[in-house]
């Protein structure tokens, strides 16, 4: 009986120490963003698992992207530009059980954004990138007709402004015209 009480006491103090450590490390990482705990990788996992957020950060809510594409058929006529991300987003709001459309819209936004990041980061020919091939394969499977001459991709973004009466100018990001493969 005495032995189990001793174990209970030790275990209790150990667990209190664990909770205190959790609180100290969390407060430390919150007060000093960019600081490391043990090493960078452990800190990343810790922040990911234990300290999610903050959500709706100022820099995130100011970035307004716009992705659209069009294609030229064999007769040389260009189609209208399509903003598929917006189309799917609106489909989600058209009914009660259209959740997949919301996620599809998010996937399309993700692909355009990652391609933009790749082009900026690596300064490579976009056609050589994995991100470009993914986007093209997705468009080909879901939106592009089988027989086309070329495809034009357009990605731009703007900063949301506090004064909405000012004309909102989009900044060109990538503009790619290519022959489908």
């Amino acid at each position: 009986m005495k032995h189990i009480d001793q174990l209970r006491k030790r275990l209790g103090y150990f667990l209190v120490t664990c909770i205190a450590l959790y609180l100290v490390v969390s407060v430390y990482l919150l007060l000093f963003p960019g600081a490391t705990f043990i090493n960078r990788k452990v800190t990343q996992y810790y922040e990911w698992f234990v300290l999610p957020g903050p959500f709706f950060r100022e820099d995130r809510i100011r970035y307004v992207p716009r992705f659209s594409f069009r294609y030229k058929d064999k007769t040389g006529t260009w189609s209208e530009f399509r903003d598929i991300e917006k189309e799917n987003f609106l489909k989600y709001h058209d009914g009660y059980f259209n959740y997949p459309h919301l996620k599809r819209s998010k996937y399309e936004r993700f692909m355009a954004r990652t391609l933009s990041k790749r082009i900026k980061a690596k300064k490579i020919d976009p056609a050589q990138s994995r991100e470009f091939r993914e986007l093209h394969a997705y468009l080909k499977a879901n939106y592009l007709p089988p027989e086309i001459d070329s495809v034009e991709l357009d990605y731009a973004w703007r900063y949301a402004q506090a004064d909405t009466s000012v004309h909102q100018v989009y900044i060109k990001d990538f503009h790619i015209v290519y022959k489908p493969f």
Partner: protein
Amino acid sequence: MINSLATRLTSPVLERRPVIIFCKTLSLYVIVKVLLTWSVVSDIAAFHRFSQPKALWSWIVFGPAVWGSNHINGFLVAIVAIAIIALLVQPNYFIAGILAWLSFSFYRLIFPIANGSDQILLTLLFAAVPLSLWPRVENEKGSLVQDSVYNTTLLLSKLYIASIYLISGLDKLTSEAWRSGDAFTYIAQLDFIVNPGLASMIPESEGGTFVISWVTILFELSFPVLIWFGRTRLWACLVGVVFHLVIGVFLSLPDFAGIMVVSYLLFFSDSDYRKLFGLFKRKE
């Protein structure tokens, strides 16, 4: 205070019902999430290339994702099947562990469409493993350790949920855009998240955005405090449910609303459930 906390953490588990309800609701959430994203996840698996694990531990952790990227339907069937079992049987370490493990791979597969709700879901699924508390260890030492780990995980999970609000609240408090109310003017311009049918309801006047900004900040800062006291807990949860439903509908974040509401179940005690069930019984 330290002694009292240590005693509390090592005391036998008395209230199981709230955690059992939480674990089962979490499983239900996984089922709904997988079923609703099935078609999109299939597309992602077809087009998005996943980097192959290199280290042995990485293979063990992400093995299901590697298999799933080539056999997406089989993987999704497996995760739904495990979640259904978790929903039907008594929470246990084995099933909860497999569900958390598969969900980690699921997260990796849905990474392009994931948001904060998936991150929170994953952490809660891992917390659900020690919270399962079955099979019970028969000897005294074993059950002491088992109960203590359970109590500590429960407390850490509650702290985790509270910290989500605190982190967001503090960030907003230090942000000029949130303090002035401009943040809502920015959000209103995010046409890829704002519900087009309700966009006109977001106030345009400076006073209106200022008020809703501060309501958001005050809620996020007060929730992590009010949730710990019996008198205010149910009210905090009630306001929280309304808060998340409004965000879920206005800002097209139904999954985030869902997981936050599910997480509130952790804070309920047996007596809260008795009150709740008593309310229905009286009505009958």
